[in-house]
């Protein structure tokens, strides 16, 4: 039997393992066996990829940049979800507040998610830097470090940042567009009471990452099977809904520029020389 491709993933909730069981069965049925290896945080998983313990890593955007950094660029983003492309984050305020421009945040408090959350912390803060506002100099940052190491996969920090805004302990909070949409729909956020102050430039989210020396035939086989999932097929749809996508698409790296800027300006990897 062909040696299974080892695919790493960070698990923040046991329920996520169910998705991987379905994916594993899907690949098995198409003669492309994979084994999922779970990690408690991205740092461990990136290390495993760098050291060759796993073949493919399901990387967060920050983990992608970390892999690029540690491998000196010798890696490839081979696939991602359609929903990983062109995401944006919003910075929201209360409708009743007197904040109507980004400049009005000067001297105020902005609540953000975990320190390693691209969507709820790093990119929004970078966006404000683009607008001439320096964190902790021009405005105060109130951070909610929930499950650090999981790069904001767990929305807990993002939610606590919003709740901080709701309690009046911050003047604005940052969150991913998908969460804004979901939380205004399910009533977590009253869309009449809150407004989007500014929206970041688009960025890309997760991607399957391989080292440059991963055999092209194995990579080809993996993406071939991955791209064979079709949302129109009810058997595939359940898993795709759980994973939040309508289609798998080729990986691209053009969507990580803003995060790269954020990582550099906020010295994210300075604590982890790699």
């Amino acid at each position: 039997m062909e040696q299974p491709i080892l695919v790493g993933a960070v698990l923040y909730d046991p329920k996520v393992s169910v998705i991987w069981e379905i994916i594993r069965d899907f690949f098995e049925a198409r003669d492309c066996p994979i084994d999922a290896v779970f990690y408690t945080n991205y740092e461990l998983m990136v290390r495993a990829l760098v050291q060759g313990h796993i073949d493919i890593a399901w990387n967060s955007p920050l983990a992608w940049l970390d892999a690029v950094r540690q491998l000196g660029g010798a890696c490839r983003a081979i696939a991602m979800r359609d929903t990983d492309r062109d995401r944006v984050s919003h910075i929201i305020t209360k409708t009743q507040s007197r904040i109507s421009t980004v400049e009005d945040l000067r001297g105020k408090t902005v609540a953000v998610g975990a320190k390693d959350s691209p969507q709820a912390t790093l990119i929004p803060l970078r966006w404000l830097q683009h607008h001439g506002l320096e964190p902790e100099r021009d405005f105060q940052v109130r951070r909610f470090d929930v499950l650090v190491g999981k790069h904001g996969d767990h929305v807990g920090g993002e939610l606590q940042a919003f709740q901080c805004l709701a309690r009046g302990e911050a003047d604005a909070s940052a969150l991913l567009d998908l969460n804004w949409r979901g939380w205004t729909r399910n009533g977590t956020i009253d869309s009449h009471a809150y407004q989007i102050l500014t929206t970041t430039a688009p960025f890309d989210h997760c991607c399957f990452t391989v080292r440059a020396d991963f055999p092209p035939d194995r990579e080809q086989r993996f993406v071939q099977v991955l791209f064979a999932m079709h949302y129109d097929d009810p058997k595939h749809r359940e898993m795709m809904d759980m994973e939040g996508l309508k289609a798998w698409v080729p990986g691209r790296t053009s969507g990580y520029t803003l995060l790269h800027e954020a990582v550099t300006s906020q010295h994210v990897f300075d604590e982890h020389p790699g």
Partner: protein
Amino acid sequence: MEGYTWTLRVSASERGQATVFTRQHQYRVGAPVHFDRAYEGVSALEYVLGAIGADLVNGLQTLGRRRRVAIDHVEAVVEGELNNPLTYLGVVGETGHPGLEKVRVRVHLASPEEGEAIHRLWHEMLATSPLVHTFQAALQLELKLQVMV
């Protein structure tokens, strides 16, 4: 007195459903733990939690009959928490263990009897329950009785 031993035979199948044979009965048990609400089988953990609840409600019924304390209905809600379910999945870097950490049982009992008689029954049942004694020594076992008239 000689020890009394229960012997069950448990046979695995390819589809991850074991069959348990005990005396003239048999039943099927699924994965040790499962996290999919749509999972077809009943996990071993669910059997354990169910057994604790059954021990309590059946214990009350049995003892009620013996003590002539009328019970109209008795039902238990059982909640179990593992120490760290991610360790069961073999997540690299997780600490702790996959064992049960806490079990909470709320027993709802409807009876026309006076409260004192019910509470006497409850305490007698707890004192004679094999599973309560077993799990009290092994984990945090929270037991609450709610009497409905």
